[in-house]
């Protein structure tokens, strides 16, 4: 076989595999949209579930619950994760200690989410009971390694020549971080943060023991209340219940809403990145 033929074959293999990945994604999306679009209505989005086995009404409380958990886990994970990444990347960059922290972060990231759920139950639920705050802390911890890693990557894209230029003007380390490093890393940091939240917002295991309720007649009134959540509602609707077929439909609708939220989060991330890249001269 001559060189050009083998080139061509290799090219086609890569191209087919690439299209295969796209195909799988489109297939999943198409499947969910096809099966879920039928139940989507104003009522489905904006009202409480009713009827036997929650087959009627909508999923409003679960949407609200998921939003609360997203915001709560951001509040937990962002400051902690960003500060930790600043510490390892700016203060102790090549030291043994930063290697150790990095190793622990990676290990933390490979713990299965159900274990986080168990841990959250042991710690946060015994502190606050099953509640939004307990769930937010559990999800926040789950997001933490991802937040740290993406923030570190963002900080690493800031060239050292900028830090050095700042020190040479008599700026302290803290001033350099605040005025040069963070502003230039900002778009990438925000993108990473949003993506990591998108990642955890669909998790079921961590909220299973810590916050999620099967059904609540009232919306939560404080962070110490339990809440419904989309992933758990999806789980409930597709497994338990007397009318599995009708339950499936609601489950597909719920899945469609959940995916839409996650995709919206991702689009926001890439929008922010492009917007800031333009504004700051593409640095």
């Amino acid at each position, binding site marked *: 076989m001559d060189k050009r033929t083998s080139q061509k074959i290799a090219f086609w293999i890569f191209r087919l595999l690439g299209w295969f990945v796209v195909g799988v994604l489109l297939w999943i999306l198409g499947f969910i949209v096809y099966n879920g679009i039928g139940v989507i209505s104003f009522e489905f989005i904006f009202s409480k579930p009713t009827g036997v086995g929650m087959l009627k009404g909508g999923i409003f409380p679960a949407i609200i619950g998921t939003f609360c958990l997203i915001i709560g886990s951001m509040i937990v994970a962002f400051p902690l994760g960003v500060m930790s990444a600043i510490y390892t990347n700016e203060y102790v960059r090549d030291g043994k200690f930063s290697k150790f922290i990095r190793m622990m972060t990676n290990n933390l990231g490979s713990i299965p989410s159900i274990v986080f759920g168990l841990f959250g139950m042991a710690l946060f639920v015994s502190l606050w009971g099953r509640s939004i705050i307990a769930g937010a802390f559990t999800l926040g911890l789950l997001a933490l390694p991802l937040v740290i890693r993406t923030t570190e990557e963002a900080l690493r894209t800031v060239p050292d020549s*900028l830090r050095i*230029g700042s*020190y040479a*003007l*008599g700026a*302290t380390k803290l001033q350099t971080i605040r*005025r040069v490093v963070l502003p*230039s890393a900002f778009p990438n940091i925000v993108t990473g943060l949003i993506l990591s939240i998108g990642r955890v917002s669909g998790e079921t295991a961590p909220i299973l023991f810590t916050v999620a309720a099967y059904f609540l007649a009232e919306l939560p009134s404080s962070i110490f209340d339990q809440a419904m959540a989309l992933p758990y509602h999806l789980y409930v609707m597709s497994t338990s219940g007397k009318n599995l077929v009708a339950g499936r439909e609601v489950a597909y609708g719920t899945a469609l809403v959940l995916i839409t939220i996650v995709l919206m989060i991702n689009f926001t991330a890439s929008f922010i990145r492009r917007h800031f890249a333009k504004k700051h001269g593409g640095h």
Partner: protein
Amino acid sequence: MNIIEAQDINFYYGDFHALKNVSLNVAKNSVTAFIGPSGCGKSTFLRLLNRMNDLIPDTKLTGKCLINQEDIYAKKADVDALRKKVGMVFQKPNPFPKSIFENVAYGLRVNGIKGKDFIQNRVEESLKGAALWEEVKDKLGRSAYDLSGGQQQRLCIARALAIKPDILLMDEPASALDPISTSKIEDLIYTLKTEYTIVIVTHNMQQAARVSDTTGFFMLGELIEFSDTKKMFLNPDKEQTQNYITGRFG
């Protein structure tokens, strides 16, 4: 009066002996050029004058370096204050991802200066000092990255001038620039001399001859010769200097 007095300086990167027994004096309001083959320690010596070498891990320095009669490596020496006195311009322009105005104002802001009018005047003055004002006065709010390489380098000079240092260190400031930008920077060095003491590293022999009063020739970490620029280029004491200047090696 000598503004810089280096006495018996040795500098190490780990085990590597990068500067060997270097002693020299620099007079106030003069231009000193350092020349020498690549890797001979010119940048290392320059960075030692504003303690930028401190940022490199695992380095060691012995000997004494006085600036304005003060030992800059004394235990109680204030590094940030030193860097305000000894400004630096780097080989590659490194403006911050901020507006032109904010780049120049940066040094003032991190030094706690708040007065709006004061900052505005100082920014203008510094940009004029760096011969950039005419080109940017209508677009001070634009990103510094919109400037050409030569303009960026003059912006970095303006940025350094804004905090009124006593000494300006320049490490091959024109090596990344075209001939026109280079000659602009050379003219600039000539005018800045009245107010500042300038120490410049250059690979360009003609440039050293054109801009400097005193020239130092480094080789393999040693300061081979340090003398009046005219003498250095017309009638050097050492054969190694002669060889390097006439391009017989290096």
